[in-house]
């Protein structure tokens, strides 16, 4: 089926108009047993009046079979049972990867605020009350058409000079400061401490310093101290002799030894025990290590670059980080900005990642839609550049033509569109609705843990429990 996805928003024609309907046809699947979940024949008629092709499947498994059978799909109307919240998650999973990235409209006899908010978090287009009303169904179809009306914006070409010199992308003032500091520190062998939130690119900066320094021809060895179980980190860093402990099946060189003549990058340095910090300090100061289970002292000539997303000074105050190690590592400190502080770097980085992944997945993508860009600019990017990279990779995988659209972005970026039942689209939310939404978001963030949510919200857990009861969360 071929049709334009970038058609302008259509005006709403009368269902009985004599004029030929020029709106792009939508393909709709309704899911629910005939007769048990409502008047599907009416839904079929309303969809047909709105120039939508309509099909019916009796249940989730058969709907999945129908959706996989071929062709693009735009919308799924699913009647949910009394396990509605669980079913919403199943539907989100089932629609992933379906051609056309169809949106879900959930039909429920009595939707609670909790269900609506859950739906919002999962990127559900709408939650409607059963029995369905014509105006609600038509509204959902109009919203879908509005979402589909997107304008393509060309992506800029990343600056080749920046890429070549530091393998870093960005022209924002905050990044220029980072480049200047890197340029000063790279030629030396000074120890560097890189600080910044998760995903801001600390390892990329460390690698760039290494590549632009006197040890560029040597190895760059990275160790993520938080990823490795505590009991294995020492042997990973310093190596071990065969039989030193259960699991030491062979003699093994540690990362310090592997980095000789080059750079050792110690990521998440705050996540190690004080005992191990003492051993790191000795290795950095004395330039020698001892393998676990071995008595021999091994000289290690390495440049150390460390990084952390934590406040090391606070950790020192709490006696969780050694002050002497801090001063040993922080000879030069580089602070990386958040993605949201980097302005138009978002677009440059997007262009860079689109190019990178389009090449990997054999696609030709040169534009992004205005709505997708708008959603990306509005996003909080708690995972910074790493999150952006992830989002773009996923979008490139699912994109079918040369433009990345809102539909290619993950649910959390396009989740603002869900409407509360019985309230017109675009209507302002009441204070209670806003509060309920915010509480639901925080609960989703904490995985439903009330204690943690109450802490984030700054209220007592009893107050939170009461509000959750009040809002049906």
């Amino acid at each position, binding site marked *: 089926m071929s049709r334009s996805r970038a058609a302008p928003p259509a005006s709403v024609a009368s269902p009985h108009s004599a004029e030929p309907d020029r709106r792009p046809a939508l393909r709709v699947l309704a899911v629910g047993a005939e007769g048990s979940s409502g008047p599907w024949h009416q839904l079929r008629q309303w969809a047909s009046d709105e120039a939508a092709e309509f099909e019916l499947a009796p*249940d*989730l*498994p058969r*709907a*999945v*079979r129908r959706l*996989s*059978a071929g062709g693009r799909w735009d919308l799924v109307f699913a009647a949910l049972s009394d396990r509605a919240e669980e079913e919403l998650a*199943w539907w989100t*999973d*089932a629609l992933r*990867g379906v051609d056309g990235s169809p949106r879900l409209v959930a039909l429920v006899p009595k939707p609670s605020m909790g269900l609506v908010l859950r739906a919002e978090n999962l990127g559900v287009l709408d939650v409607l009350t059963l029995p369905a009303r014509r105006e609600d169904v038509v509204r959902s179809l109009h919203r879908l058409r509005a979402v589909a009306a997107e304008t393509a914006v060309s992506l800029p070409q990343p600056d080749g000079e920046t890429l070549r010199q530091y393998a870093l992308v960005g022209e924002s003032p905050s990044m220029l400061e980072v480049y200047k500091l890197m340029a000063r520190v790279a030629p030396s062998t000074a120890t560097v401490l890189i600080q910044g939130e*998760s*995903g801001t690119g600390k*390892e990329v900066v460390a690698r760039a310093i290494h590549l632009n320094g006197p040890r560029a021809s040597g190895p760059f060895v990275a*160790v*993520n101290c*938080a*990823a*490795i*179980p*505590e009991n*294995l980190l020492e042997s990973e860093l310093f190596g071990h002799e065969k039989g030193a402990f259960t*699991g030491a*099946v*062979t003699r*093994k060189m540690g990362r310090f030894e592997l980095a000789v003549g080059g750079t050792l990058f110690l*990521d*998440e340095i705050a*996540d190690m025990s004080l005992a191990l910090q003492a051993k790191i300090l000795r290795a950095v100061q004395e330039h020698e290590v001892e393998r676990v289970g071995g008595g021999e002292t091994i000289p290690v000539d390495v440049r150390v670059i460390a990084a952390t*997303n*934590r406040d090391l000074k606070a950790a020192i105050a709490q006696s969780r980080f050694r002050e002497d190690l801090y001063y040993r590592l922080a000879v030069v400190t580089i602070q990386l900005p958040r993605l949201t502080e980097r302005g138009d770097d978002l677009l440059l980085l997007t262009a860079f990642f689109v190019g990178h992944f389009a090449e990997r997945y054999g696609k030709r993508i040169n534009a992004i839609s205005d709505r997708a860009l708008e959603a990306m600019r509005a996003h909080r990017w*708690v*995972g*910074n550049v*790493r*999150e952006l990279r*992830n989002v773009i*990779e*996923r979008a490139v*995988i699912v994109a079918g033509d040369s433009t990345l659209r809102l539909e290619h972005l993950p649910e959390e970026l396009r989740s603002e569109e869900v409407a509360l039942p019985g309230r017109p689209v675009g209507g302002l939310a009441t204070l209670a609705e806003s509060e309920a939404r915010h509480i639901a978001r925080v609960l989703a*963030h*904490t*995985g439903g*843990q*009330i*204690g*943690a949510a109450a802490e984030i919200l700054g209220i007592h857990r009893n107050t939170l429990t009461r509000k959750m009861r009040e809002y049906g969360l």
Partner: protein
Amino acid sequence: MKVEQALRLLPELDALTPLRALLMATSRPDDRVVWARAGEYLTVGKREVTAAELRRQMAQTYTRITEHLSGLYAAYVEAVERLEAGAPGAAVAALLAAAHLEERVGRLSAAGRWVEVAQRLAEGLQDRRPEVDALIAGARIHLALGRYEEGARCYQRALVLAEAEFDQAGAIRACRGLGAVATERGEWAGAEAWYRRALRLAESGNGPGLAAGIHHALGELASRRGDPSGAVEHLRQAREGFEREGDAAGMADALSTQGRVDAELGRGAAAAAAYREALAWARRDADGPGREVAIHLRLAELHLEGGRFLEAEEEIRRAEDVAIASDQAPRLAAIYALLGRSRGLQGDETGFVFFEQAIELARTLDGSQLALAEVYTEYGAFKQRLHHPEEARAYLERAGEIFEALGGKAALDRVRADLHRLSA
């Protein structure tokens, strides 16, 4: 506090197993880690757990424990009652129901002990059909624990008794079980013979409801022996049978095998569609979460084969979420082994953390030897990919020793082939 730290405070006592599961189920990733580089390597041991949350959810755990124990006690009382009423066959059935309850919560050794009691009672009866049921239940548990020899002996004895008693349904189940044992031992021709015998019996009108399952087993066998085309027709018949009977679990299993067959035939899109539909069916089944985890992992393997690492790891993380939330901890070892494989395929040395976590988890499992051997096999392949042949050999040899001791010839042959390639 991290889960790995909290677990160190928990002695390994049988009575505390539900608390261990609760600890994992209430854990969540540290917000600071989710988008950090370490987030890519997150395992259950690195998740955060709080005393407050444990306390809050304790009541649900008590309820679950109480329900489970009530079920066991009620089954026992029923067995006594049936014996008093002179119905020993029904008493055996009650004891086997208790075994099934233990099996459902993954307590396989405990289930085995209920079966032993049932078996002893059944052996003294004139009617041998309860003994057939007990033997088949015991065989299934042996198989799940990787004890193929014992499993085969039970199935053989069940078959002899079932045939003597004209218990066609019992004979069908025993033949099918023997086929499953032969499959694990890599005896393909023997497995096919057993399955075909079961199918003949089922199609002769004495077990129409069982035919779909046997077609599925034949399809699975054809796939494992490297003949995906031979699996297609059996799987079609299995799906038709299961759908006709409204057997959601059967549909999920058949579609999951169909997905693997499609993948082997190079039909990636069809494979993904089959897995997605399998997931939808699995969710209709009460015992769904375990099955759901397995299907997510197969879908992830499909992505890995296509080099789509992001999608593969997202799928594995979905399996992890389901496993942690639904008390499927035994599946976590397989989940982390697959994450480790994904990292190995990307040349990422730090992927070893997943294998270390998988080994730790496998050691605490009921039937740990089989799980441990599977993890060692994957760890060996990981080390091989990253050009550490000595370590690869050490892990593969350990896996081989375990498979040999268990009598898992099919897996042993795989390991030996890997070792041979390593030496070449």
